[in-house]
């Protein structure tokens, strides 16, 4: 009887373990998409795809996790806590240079959204020479070096929190802003941005593509069907957001409420429109692909300003859909 009991318990444990293993394959444990910033319209396509059930339609359990200002997207990918992450092209390229075998599976933003804003007039980039420029944590260092490369004497770059508050309090003079977030946030606070006080980074020849979705090369190779399904559903989400902007913004706002973030309809709808503009590549339509030209842009940036990095990454390695 005792033997029978022990055998029964062992058998039950075995069945449970097998069931657990099978459940992972049956996608009961969700795949994680980790965004590199908090829930906002910048990630509208994924929120829409999740809320409208486009991932579910692909039989894909996707959990959306947003940046919590503690965990970095690249680290999440490296640690295996997220299967997909969003990040900028330059950040992803640096991560690859640093040894993380990640691949771009979808390129969303095809243009550089950054500008540099000062309280004073900026006739040209030369006016930034020797200035203190205050950037937020996570601002890509390669841009600092690249911009310095355009100046007769380098600007000094500092990282602080709450860049906009410091700027509004006139504690700092020059800050970077993105066209879809900080720029409108400043204007919405009552600050009047004058065109003379602004320099677009793209005007310095640095029109580097930004946000994309990345996974590890291993995951891509072993779960290509999952990646394909994820991309199909995400594109559907973005397209839905373009056709139904108000409904999509409401989904974003609901997410922000859930995370106790500030809820501002006007801000999010403007961000969504701006993001939709950035989704369009040179052809004027959203392609969701990373072109070789866009890749070469960031490769050249690192080649020139990457602190003597000799390593060259191949486009086909970085963008596996071409293989």
């Amino acid at each position, binding site marked *: 009887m005792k033997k029978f009991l022990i055998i029964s318990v062992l058998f039950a444990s075995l069945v449970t373990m097998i069931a657990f293993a099978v459940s992972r394959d049956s996608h009961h444990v969700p795949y994680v998409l980790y965004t590199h910033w908090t829930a906002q319209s910048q990630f509208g396509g994924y929120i829409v795809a999740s809320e409208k059930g486009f991932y579910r339609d692909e039989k894909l359990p996707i959990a959306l996790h947003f940046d919590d200002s503690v965990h970095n997207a690249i680290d999440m990918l490296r640690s295996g806590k997220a299967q997909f992450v969003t990040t900028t092209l330059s950040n992803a390229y640096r991560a690859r240079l640093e040894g993380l075998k990640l691949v771009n599976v979808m390129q969303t933003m095809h243009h550089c959204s950054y500008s540099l804003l000062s309280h004073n007039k900026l006739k040209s980039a030369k006016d930034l020479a020797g200035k203190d420029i205050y950037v937020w*944590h996570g601002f890509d260092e390669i841009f600092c070096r690249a911009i310095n490369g355009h100046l007769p004497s380098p600007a000094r770059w*500092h*990282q*602080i*929190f*709450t860049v*906009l*508050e*410091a700027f*509004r*309090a*006139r*504690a*700092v003079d020059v800050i970077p802003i993105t066209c879809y977030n900080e720029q409108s946030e400043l*204007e*919405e*606070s*009552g600050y009047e941005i004058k065109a003379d006080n602004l320099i677009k980074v793209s005007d310095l020849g640095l029109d580097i593509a930004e946000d994309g979705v990345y996974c590890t090369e291993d995951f891509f190779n072993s779960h290509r069907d999952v990646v394909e399904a994820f991309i199909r559903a995400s594109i559907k989400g973005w397209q839905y957001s373009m056709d139904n902007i108000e409904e999509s913004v409401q989904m974003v706002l609901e997410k922000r409420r859930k995370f*106790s973030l*500030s*809820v*501002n*309809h*006007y*801000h999010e709808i403007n961000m969504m429109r701006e993001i939709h503009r950035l989704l369009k590549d040179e052809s004027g339509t959203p392609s969701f692909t990373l072109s070789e030209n866009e890749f070469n842009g960031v490769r050249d940036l690192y080649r020139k300003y990457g602190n003597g990095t000799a390593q060259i990454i191949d486009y086909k390695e970085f963008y596996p859909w071409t293989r």
Partner: protein
Amino acid sequence: MDKIKSMAMRASFMVVAFVTIIFGILISSNIYFAIRDIEEKEHVQMYAETKYLAYRLINQVQSIESSVEAHEQALRHYLRDGDDVGEVMRDLLRRDKRLIECNVGLEPDHFLAKTLGNPEGLMYRAYREGDSIAVVIKPNDYHFQVQSFYFIPKHIKRNYWTEPVMSNGARIITFSHPLLDNDGRMFALLSVDLPLEVLVDTLQTAIKDDNAGFVYAIGKSGRYMVHPNNDFVLNETFVTNSREHDAPKFEAMCRKALAGASGTQYVEYGGKNFLDSYMYVNGLGWMVGIAKSWSAIVSDILKGVGYSILTFIVCMALLTLVMYKLMKQLTNMTAVKESFEKELFIAHDIQMGMLPRIFPAPPAHPNIDVFAYLNPAKEVGGDLYDIFLKKDKLHFIIGDVSGKGVPASLVMAITISLFRSMDNACSPVEVVTRINNSVAANNERNMFVTLIVGELDLETGHLCFCNAGHDPMLLLTEGSVERIPMLPNLPVGLMEDFPYRMNETDIKKGERLLLYTDGVAEAENPDKNLYTIERLMSLAEKLTDRSSRELIDSIQTDVTNFASGADQSDDITIMAIHYM
């Protein structure tokens, strides 16, 4: 009947419309001035309330700033001597219960930071733990130097209130006081955290009356700190709110207020008008405002106007009813009057038809030229004349019934009828006597008639006549006029069987008799002067060579000219008999 009804309706409508227009003008001007007055008062009152709120908030802010600054000297002392700065922080939290946390940050080159093994600088943190206060050193990975509460005051070198942040589900605001060295460089910073409610409750509890409008406050980031719609707080900014509600004036006003201005102004928000009063809160960098909808401001007036209009409508309904009835009566009376006038007009025609109108009156006689004229003062009158010729004798009568109008005209008709019914054998006295007896019988109204009845023998020129109280006849000879003397008698109708006396005289060929009623002599001009018998005689004197018609036409014209448009007060009758 329908016509009368529609006339009454029309008249009532016009009166009501007129009264409504007058009322409309009165009520509009009243409303205009009442609204202007209440708006002026509201501007003053709301501004005073806003000022009161702003000062309450400033008091709260300044008391916290003072509370922190009061510990500066002690902190400087402790930092200089390397004593436990935690004591200063504990004291601060113990004294000011509004504060939940206190921080002291030290710059990297401060000796104490180096001594404690934090060459990058360090931050002490004091916080409440139950009833006691704990003091710790924050871990290095906190990076306090790049946090806004530290970084900003360090760079602007003055006190700084941060924008509120969410921390563990609570809304926290921080006040930072930089400690500067002799060179003006910050070497340490003392800051305190407090719940945002400490400030906003000052505003929210200040005004409880709903009619006083609602209070709002906007922080330096443009975000709402206080708003009756809680979804706005720390979410909406005045710019996003204005743009989503098409309120450019409100946006401009907030910009002005956050730049340091204060005042009151009307703004449109979401299609409604609001009176906003605003004031800048120095130090904190906020603006405080009170908004009151225009409809709420004037609601009492509009309510009063509503009652007035309701009362007016009821009054107008009653007035319309009364007017309709009155106008209907008036219209009926007018119709009756018109009908009466029509009948009088017919009576006038009948009366005139009783008088000889064709001259010479048939049968024509070569020895006579007669003409007569009668112009009643009203439609019908009491004057009379008549002539007829029988057996070479001309019988004539002229008379004036007392009174005017219909009664006089009836007596006139009776008199003429009696005159005509007389036998030609009757002498004038007999005729007058008979008329007198007929009129006097049953003469309850005491009406009487003055008259002359005469008989002229056209062969001999013998004239016999009886004058019953009438004006004397005039005898016109060539170039002269004289009254024919006569025996006085009573007018007919006054006394039955009165013994009338006869007058007799002879007139020569070429002489004229002129008979008239008192309407001629008593015709008035606008100055109330009388025409007089003397004027008649004087005129007649110049016209002795004229035919009877020409004579009477001239007299008639002269009387008309004399009257110069003055109302004719009595009937006028003139008769001329030319014996040829």
